[in-house]
């Protein structure tokens, strides 16, 4: 799960970079940057939850 989380972090960052580099309209850029950050947050959540102590606390 930790590996998946880190891959999502990188994927979210790639979405942000692509939005900044490739998109011109400001609205589209904002939407995709926010989407990229959202993907990053999902990845970060997975990484955090993969910590055995955090997972045990959730049970």
């Amino acid at each position, binding site marked *: 799960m930790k590996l998946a989380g880190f891959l999502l*972090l990188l994927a979210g*960052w*790639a979405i*942000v970079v692509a939005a*900044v580099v490739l998109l011109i309209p400001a609205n589209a850029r904002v939407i995709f940057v926010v989407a990229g*950050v959202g993907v*990053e947050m999902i990845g970060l959540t997975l990484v955090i939850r993969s910590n055995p*102590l*955090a997972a045990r606390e959730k049970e």
Partner: protein
Amino acid sequence: MPITEIVLVILLILLAPFSVAGLSLINTGLGRSRSAAHCLLTSLCIFAVAAGVYVICGFAWQGYIGAPAHVIVVAGRQWNWLARGSFFLRGIEFDGAPISLAAGLQIFSVGLAALIPMGACLDRWRLSAACASTALLAGWTYPLFAHWVWGGGWLAQLGINAAMGHGVIDAGGSGTIQAVGGLTALALAWILGPRRGKYSLEGMPTAIPGHNAVLILLGCFLAFFGWLGLNSAGAILFTGAAPGRIVLISINTALAAGAAVLAAVLITGMRFGRPDVSISANGWVGGLVASSASCAFISPLAALVIGAIAGALVTYSVEWFELHLGVDDPGGAISVHALGGIWGLLAVAIFARFPAPAVDIGGGLFRAASTRDAGQALAQAVAVATLIGFVLPLTYGLNLALNRIWPQRVAMEGERQGLDLYELGGGAYPEFVTHSDEFGQFR
């Protein structure tokens, strides 16, 4: 640069080492007495390795605005991603040129960034492994991100290339120094695991208090002097702030730290009946961290608000990391530096104002704008996204790979004896009986 400005910047740069000294004392005080000497010696070694590796290759890859760099052409625009300097600072004339001043400041900045993870790894990080990890941070992770923000890289170019405000603004290093160090601290805390006896079998944390409050609080005062130098020199060298802004920067730095420590004192006083020394000290440093990015471009009132929020953020997040996320961070490095640094970057978007004369870098790097620009918020958000989505996986991967070939955590026997005896053969307080194990069942 005029000679008077050169002398001024040099004096500011010479204040920066106080931040390293202050943080070293804070970390030592927050750790256990059985590892005090080891903590300080490791701090010295970390600084030495960071400075050495940075001179060898770090500054070559960080570079400075206008220096040769590797670029990628995408969508018809050039995106600068890595500097193309010479190793060992070759080719740099130390005649007061801005690049030479930047190299001087960066030696201390990278030392500070490398020292931050020590706060999260107290009492269990081997000296040799700390040096190896520092080499990775100083030689690669730090220079890469610092180039993107301070060296004319793609984050700084967001203003010119993508009409996003002035590009990423980070005067004193909330992102480049503090967040990079704090996220490395998080990665190492995950890799090392918690201290022996920190969590019970049920997963409940046990309090392991710091051993010397005087060291912690003295470190806070020293760190303040260092931050004055970092913020002021960084604002002049990396955002083109006018020297006259130093007074505003100093006022804002002091106000942010003061508001943060008062917030932490009030909150811990209300929650626990008495103020907590270690959390309040972390609050003070959190205020310094949060003030760094925007110090040259905010009003004193904004500095108070930024500091107060930083203090509250640190106070609650220290507990959140320990209790809910299962991350053992004795020095509060993750809360103070990672979260504080990220808040500092975002605060630029909310509070900073950029009158045209305040931001003036040769080469047209910064897009001139005399009013608040909504694109600035997006630029700062992109910087935060880069820290979380790229720097964190990078530093975690590098340190995980290092851990495979060079184990970072000391043996359990070493942790029981204390790192002073186990790694150094002698304690910091040899005349006192300094510890007794009081733990019951633990993991």
